[in-house]
């Protein structure tokens, strides 16, 4: 093995009858890796498996060569910011982190210094002495991040880390991810919005229904998406839909036009968004009254629908 990796080898996990993840084989190199998939697809399950919060029913997992069944070694090099939005009642932002650090065997002074550094990095110094239970959702998200990084781990596992962050903090956080990745660390994060992470990720893993759908360098995955035809819903006035449909069908980039039953709506499928927009402009100038144009698949679910071949 040339570089330390997080390796899943034929890993399956079932929750009773319900499937968690199924026969996942995956090698994650250092750098920023995003697990992307709709809610319930198995992202959190993969992360929990990686950190030993749950154990696989089949298969083998190694995090930089360490089994998740050995938390004593694993958690020294791993930090996991979960999505569980809970903290002990007694904890302030500061004690929440120092308490965790004391278990690493740090002395009081060092634990406090490290906690302070972590809080500073996430802009939580002002709130450090307040109870975590009284934090806003975004602050709780950040304090969990701060706790995960406080012991300077090599493998950072972050479940939906950008959820609930305001744009400024979000940009800062992303810079942090990049800095860690540059140091040769693993930064593994999850998101259910591809656009949110595709610019920052070195690698994207697309998950649906507990299986890996696509995996690889971000450009490759992007190209796959770009070739995918776009769908639009066009609504016209005064029963002109059939006329518009005929005009659109003559455009070479339009692959399919479906007329709605109400004779006012059209479902148009096109290979080229830009040409489609220009064509619509021409048709409107010709006097056809177009009421609205809505992209039918700008939501991520539609993307997955395409990627996984129609299952949802």
């Amino acid at each position, binding site marked *: 093995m040339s570089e330390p990796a997080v390796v899943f080898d034929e890993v399956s996990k079932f929750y009773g009858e319900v499937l968690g993840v199924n026969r996942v084989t995956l090698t994650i190199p250092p750098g920023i890796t995003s697990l992307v998939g709709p809610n319930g697809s198995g992202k959190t399950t993969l992360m929990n498996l990686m950190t030993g919060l749950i*154990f696989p029913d089949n298969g083998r997992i190694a995090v930089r060569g360490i089994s998740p069944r050995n938390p004593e070694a694993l958690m020294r090099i791993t930090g996991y910011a979960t999505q569980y939005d809970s903290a*002990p009642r007694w904890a302030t932002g500061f004690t929440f982190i120092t308490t*965790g650090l*004391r*278990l690493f065997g740090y002395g009081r002074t060092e634990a406090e210094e490290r906690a302070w550094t972590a809080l500073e990095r996430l802009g939580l110094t002002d709130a450090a002495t307040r109870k975590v239970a009284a934090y806003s959702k975004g602050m709780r998200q950040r304090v969990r991040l701060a706790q995960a990084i406080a012991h300077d781990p090599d493998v950072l596992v972050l479940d939906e880390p950008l959820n609930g962050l305001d744009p400024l903090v979000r940009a800062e956080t992303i810079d942090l991810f990049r800095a860690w990745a540059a140091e040769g660390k693993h930064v593994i994060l999850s998101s259910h919005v591809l656009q949110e992470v595709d610019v920052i990720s070195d690698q994207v893993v697309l998950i649906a229904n507990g299986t890996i759908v696509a995996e690889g360098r971000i450009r490759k995955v992007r190209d796959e998406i770009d070739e995918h035809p776009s769908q639009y819903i066009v609504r016209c006035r005064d029963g002109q839909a059939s006329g518009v449909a005929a005009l659109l069908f003559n455009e070479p980039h339009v692959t399919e036009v479906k007329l709605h039953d109400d004779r006012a709506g059209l479902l148009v499928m096109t290979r080229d968004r830009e040409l489609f927009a220009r064509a619509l402009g021409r048709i409107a100038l010709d006097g056809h009254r177009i009421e609205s144009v809505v992209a039918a698949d700008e939501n991520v679910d539609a993307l997955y629908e395409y990627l996984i071949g129609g299952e949802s």
Partner: protein
Amino acid sequence: MTPQSFQSRARQAWTIARIELRRAFFAKRSLWVYALALLPSLIFFGHGIEAKFQTERLARRGLTAPPLLDSVREGEALDEVKARLGEPAEERWSVRTRRVRQRRQNSGTTTHVIEPAAGARFVRLNVTRPSYSGEPVARIYEVEVYGPKGGANLALHRPATGSIPCSETEGPEKAVNGSVAGGHDDKWCAEDWPLFLQVDLGAVRPVARVVVKHASAGGEDAESDTRDFNIQVSDDGKTFTTVASSTGAGLVEERTEIREVVYFDGQRRARLLFIDGALQQRSIRRLLDLEEDRMVFAGIFQYFYLRLAIFFGCLGIFMYLFRGEMSNRTLHFWFLAPARREVLLAGKYAAGLMASAAIFAGGAVVMFAAMLWPHDPVEIEAYWNAGGLSHGLWYAAAAALGCVGYGSVFLAVGLYVRNPIIPAAVLLAWEGVNGILPHALQKMSILYYLQSLCPVPAPMDAEAPMLIQLLAAPAAPASRPGALLGLLLLTGVVLWIAALAVRRMQISYGAET
């Protein structure tokens, strides 16, 4: 990634224990544990206060010399006792009155003389109030009719009629069969109004005397005797003439005077109970008896404190060490720490143990102190010199060791089972029937070892049935070191079982994505 030394793991466990102490001591759902630990102390404290208050109050009226107190004998008259002992510290009296039927000799049989003798063929008994008790049932064992010269009973075996009888075997003929000794069936019984019994003498005869034998003549309760009735005669069975009537015996008030006098010699209270002026009953007891209180303490400690308070206290504290964090969704913080699961278990157990031992050993010490404080300092000192201190320490130790044992059990149970009620019931039953189990199984109960750590055996009535004796005071290992070793071994095994579970434990907070 160097393998960690034992010391650093122990330090980790200690860190975990210190963090967890707060939860162990102040978990909201376990605050009732304190009530369990302090309840016996409150009882002893209350007892002490009450005794002190009584001493104060009784002494205010003057003390009686102890020999005088002992000189009182049963049967003595109140005035004599008062003359000898002086005015009592306390005197209460009451009079109990009861309305009773005036008793006469042979009241079950009434004789009615008819003067002058009347000629009659039919003799009839009309019952108007059938009993003294108020029960509306007439019971006549025999009616005898005699002529002026006495002689034969004219009614004997003559045809008799009457109200519908209570049962077939209690018909009117039973009242003229010449017998009352044939049991409770040897009577005429009726409750159908009007109540009457009539005998046909066969021909008109002179009748001078009628004898009626009531319930008590046949062996029944005198309250069932006929109260009011009359006797009528007739020649033709149609026109009747009343010749005699009886309105029953009167009721009198029976008066009993009950007087309780109390004398006090500074320590002992003598309660003397006089009934109608004569001493019926005397009891002389110390208000505060160290010997007795120590036995009560031993009983409360073994039957309540060890078996129930510590049992349920440990349930409250240990059961939720893991389960509570699972429902609060905070358990994953521990699982994400760089510590073995066994170290986490050890840390949490240590926290629970520190809390429960402090609460219950502390409770035992407070209870011991509450038991001792009202007593005479001289007596306490004597007890102290005769091993009182070691008694107190052993009670505290037994309580703490109870926490060691029960704590491990409930920690393990909490890892395997979600709902505490059923396992708690099963365990309680298991510990309860410990005394009648085979010896090999007895060793698998915490109580078995705790028994012999208690310095004073629990009081047991020697006349209690064998089974109760076995259940309440099961066999125990002979020596303390043996018991200690056994308890620790058992705890070790239980903790090892708990470790197996915690190694396999996975985070499952319900709805997950």
